């Protein structure tokens, strides 16, 4: 199954079609909690909820041309709202946060790159 990134949202003009990411894709909350303990032993927690936004990271392997295509896409829409439909056909709306985007050769004609993405609720 494919991995689709479309931008700009909502008037999609370009579609980036990528292969399924490598095993090991990640996602996590962007929220954070900082705890402090006062002198009387009472614990206080300070939270940054970030509205529950999640961060995603996918690793891809493709050809160099596909890598260049990804560079061009990210270069064009790094500050635009994009829509991602991942390999599980789950749609996300947010921003591509990878910076810098780097494609790395891992063979004769294969390159790898990672795309990190932060949802916008």
């Amino acid at each position, binding site marked *: 199954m494919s991995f689709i990134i479309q931008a700009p949202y909502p008037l999609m003009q370009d579609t980036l079609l990528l292969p399924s990411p490598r095993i090991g894709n990640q*996602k*996590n*909350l962007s*929220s*954070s909690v900082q705890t402090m*303990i006062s002198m009387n032993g009472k614990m206080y927690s300070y939270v940054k909820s970030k509205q529950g936004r*999640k961060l995603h990271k996918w690793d891809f392997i493709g050809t160099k041309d596909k890598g260049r295509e990804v560079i061009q896409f990210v270069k064009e829409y790094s500050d635009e709202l994009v829509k991602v439909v991942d390999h599980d056909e789950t749609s996300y709306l947010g921003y591509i946060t990878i910076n810098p985007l780097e494609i790395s050769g891992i063979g004769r004609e294969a390159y790898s790159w990672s795309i990190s993405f932060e949802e916008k609720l």
Partner: protein
Amino acid sequence: MAIRVSNVTAQILYRPSEINRSVIDTLNFIQESEKRQITVSNFTFQILQSETGIFGTISNTLEIVDQANNFLAIDDRKVAEDELQFAQNAKAFGYETVEQEIEFVQQIGVIGPIIKNITHNLALHQDTSNCIGLSWEPYEIEDELDIDHWAGVGHPLSVSDTLSFIDEVFQANPLTHVINFSQSISIGKSINISDILSLSDSLDSNNLFNVSITHADFIKHAFTYYIDNKCTRKQYNRFQGEGERDGIPSVPLTFDAFFVLESLSGTKETLEIRSPESDDRQRIGFSRINRETRGGELNVFSDSSWPKIHSLLFTITALSDGCLEKINSLLNFFQNHLGEEILIHDWEGISWRGIITTPNEIATEDQDGWWTISFEFQGSIVDGSFNDQRMNITDQVIFGGEWGRSSSSELELIDAVVSSILGTIARSLEHDLGISDSVSGMLEHPILEDDFSGGASSLHGESPDVGDSTWSAHSNYKANGTQTAINSGAYYPFVPENNKIYHIEWEPRSLSESDGLETLFFLGEGLNSDPDEIGPDAYGAIDPTTLKAGFVLRKIGSSQLNACRLGDDSDGQADTVDFSDATLKAESDDIDLRLILDNWKATWYAKDPASSSWTEVRSESNLLSNDITMVGWSNNNITTTVTMNEIKITQKTEI
């Protein structure tokens, strides 16, 4: 030898207006033995203070030397006595120190041919009681009395050395009273030596300031000890090595595979996921101050109120992202309860209360559709039970057969009670929609049973096989049921009750009747006080043994005419009716007799011993008299005999 001192006045005069440091008063008396006497008269010794100034001490020394040397006792039967009495007073006012010393040296050197005894008495009295001081100027009074008393003789037959003195110290301040004793006796020749040192130390106090006086312990013994153990050497090592604290109580493993997160505030939410990987970690963080001295000694300090942070690190794998969406549920739980206290119930059944401090940990899809995430939890153990305790027990009831029954089934209840006393009861129940219970039967209770299995001794006083009393019988009646012919009987106490049914049975054997003579089996009124009584009052004809109901085995002419008899209040032969059954009426040998007494109505039965069924030989009849107190059998003659095989009385209760 005598010393006479008269009219001697030795005094120290001072002017109160002046404060003197010292006054020296010396009085010397010298007595020479050659003269044998000292006569002092009109002697006045006084110290007049002529100088002004401040004196710290007053010294009053009185020295008296009395020497008796070269005394030759012409008459050896006389006792040489040397008495010397002294009195010295020292009065001072306003002085810091008052010293009053009295020194006595008394020597007796006796040279004589034969000395009987020498009495050397030294009486001393030193009194420094009249010291008046100033209340605002504490002073010290030193009263020392040194006595050197010794007596020496050339060839004494006995030496008596008595030393007695009284040392008194009066003082307003705390009292110290020390008496030093030293007594030694040195002799040249003696038969025996007796050295007795008797000490008596009494402390009298007349002191208004004293609360208590203790004059017993003069030795005090105190000791301290130190126990050297690990605890004393490790008191500062509260967080290292060994210590006195108890460990964390162990919690038995429940091997529950569930790992539950539960919210405590806001929307109640419980998330159950799989247990973390086995490499989970617990981290204990605490605050303490470490200082190492230059000598290398480590000093550690930690206040007990300083917080200790307990963190748990979990790694959970294989969280699905498919239909179960465990990873998304977990992230949503983190987001919904950011910074809030939650409960974690781990796989050991331990509950933790705290905060997830790393909700933004990265979850990795390391397998297609399965995620792995790690997070850190900071909290503490709480006492309580597992929230969602599940009992993994499958309760099964396995039975065989069918439970169902048809509507027309019969429920039979067989209630059998068998005992040696009661017999057997059987009853049946009908089962309709309810239960109808009809029970018929008789409950038997033996009152008297005797099979006369005893010996040839007298039956009188013997106890039956069943029964609470004993037989009252003529001596001709034996315990084995036999008898020698006598016009008397053997009786057993029996008092029937109202509304009760009794079966009285006799089993006579070996009956030998003669013409006109009777053997009676009956319920009677009473007993003779003498069991060997003979005659009509002994065999049931008249009181006290008057027959009330019974049987008569008799022969009239040559025919056996067995009959049933009733007696009234005084006549035991009031009513006699022959057996209705001709065969039993003519029975002259063994026969079984039964009398049924039902609420003062009698019915007579008889049978052949070989038969199992009873034959009514007289129909039910009312008793003529209800005064029944005994049961037995008798003969009205001295000819006939009978052997009693068995007697029984059974109480029947209809149920």
